[in-house]
């Protein structure tokens, strides 16, 4: 069965698997690894678009990734988020995929998506990737499952301190809290995301989003990095960085940001700061090569955000 609720409260009360753009869900339904009735958000009023909200900006969960990439207030106040939205997947996926779906999408691990095997995350007894092919797996081994978190938007939104509005909840939940510590075996949350809130920022925001990727388009990043900063009179007054593709949860990079915050922009300081991003990496034998991709990706993002004219 499929239902098309018309309001967020109707959607929250309805039964069935939430369907937004369907770019992740349809594949899983087709393969039979996800089964059940559907509640489709297509007709829900007030769940799409960017507007003012209590924290700053409110992004409806059904806003498409493509809309987010070009929204003038996101481009101005949260440029790293806009760049990440414009840089992920392919134009057609960005046109269909939504903010809520991007955050809640399931891992792309080939074992997880193979209907012929049942891995730990699908209720089996072992992580098949850990013992098998894990070339693109996590390099920060935080939990039983080693599939990297798939959401580019979550990585970028971490640098903006985003908050999640869940149906039926009184308070907004900080994104890092909603994402958890990477040990959970459920993908997405249990509750319907109604909107994502972005706190107000001071004027003069700069940002960058860089992905290391095997081909130009239609590929998942090996490592992806988002940086949000503000430079006043040559001094880095604000900076936050986060990294995706390397852990079961996108990880903030406080060490990198702390090394640069409050200091004049110094091109020579960027590479040593970027090098701090690998601290704590504990890769699997097959994913160790990815560690070597991290410093260059972080450095590229720092250069694009902080140096005039972008990367040197």
């Amino acid at each position, binding site marked *: 069965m*499929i239902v098309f609720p018309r309001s967020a409260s109707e959607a929250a009360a309805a039964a069935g698997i939430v369907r937004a753009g369907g770019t992740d869900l*349809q594949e899983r339904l087709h393969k039979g690894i996800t089964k059940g009735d559907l509640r489709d958000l297509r007709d829900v009023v007030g769940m799409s678009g960017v507007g003012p909200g209590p924290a700053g900006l409110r992004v409806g969960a059904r806003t498409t990734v493509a809309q987010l990439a070009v929204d003038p207030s996101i481009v101005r106040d949260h440029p790293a988020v806009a760049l990440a939205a414009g840089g992920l997947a*392919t134009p*057609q996926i960005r046109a269909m995929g939504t903010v809520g779906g991007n955050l809640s999408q399931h891992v792309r691990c080939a074992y997880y998506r193979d209907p012929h095997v049942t891995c730990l995350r699908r209720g089996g007894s072992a992580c098949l990737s850990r013992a098998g092919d894990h070339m693109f797996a996590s390099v920060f081994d935080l939990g039983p499952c080693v599939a990297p978190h798939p959401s580019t938007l979550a990585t970028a939104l971490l640098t903006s301190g985003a908050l999640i509005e869940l149906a039926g909840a009184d308070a907004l939940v900080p994104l890092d809290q909603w994402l958890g510590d990477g040990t959970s075996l459920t993908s997405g949350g249990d509750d319907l995301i109604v909107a994502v809130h972005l706190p107000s920022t001071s004027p003069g925001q700069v940002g960058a989003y860089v992905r290391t990727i095997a081909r130009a388009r239609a590929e998942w990043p090996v490592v992806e990095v988002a940086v949000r900063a503000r430079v006043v009179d040559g001094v880095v007054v604000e900076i936050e960085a986060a990294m995706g593709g390397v852990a079961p949860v996108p990880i903030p990079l406080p060490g990198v940001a702390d090394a640069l915050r409050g200091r004049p922009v110094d091109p020579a300081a960027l590479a040593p700061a970027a090098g701090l991003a690998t601290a704590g990496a504990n890769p699997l034998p097959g994913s160790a090569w990815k560690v070597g991709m991290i410093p260059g990706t972080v450095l590229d993002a720092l250069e694009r955000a902080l140096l005039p004219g972008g990367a040197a």
Partner: protein
Amino acid sequence: MPTEITLRLQINGEQVRRIIPANRSLLDFIREDLRLTGSKHGCDVGDCGACTVLVDGAPQLACITLAAECEGAAIRTIEGVTDGGGLHPIQEALHRHVGAQCGYCTPGIVMAMTSLLEADPHPSDSAINEALGSNICRCTGYTKILAAVREVARPGSPS
């Protein structure tokens, strides 16, 4: 068994009504129920663009589109890319430039380019690249495809 729904939509200008499983993809609906097999199953996961059709004029990956969501929509497939069944200028140009080798990607590319050229008859190279960004071709290396699209977009100029 998934519950069935009644779906009404327009396909290549013709109104159709079918009872289908609620979770049927648009691609399976087009290929299996309507027997229009020009749109291809490439990856079935949204990677390759071989299944691209136009939904209300915009290119969409039919493999990851739920048919039920297209109630009332106007769908165009490669079979309806021209009214009379002749070749579309982009198909003629692809033919001239040998822009199809195995041809598996071609229907999707023709649909994506048709939508681009209908919205903007003279797109820039970057607009062409962006519009081709959802379509993977494993054979041609894209050079001949780009030459064909440029020829239609900018007749007379060197491609």
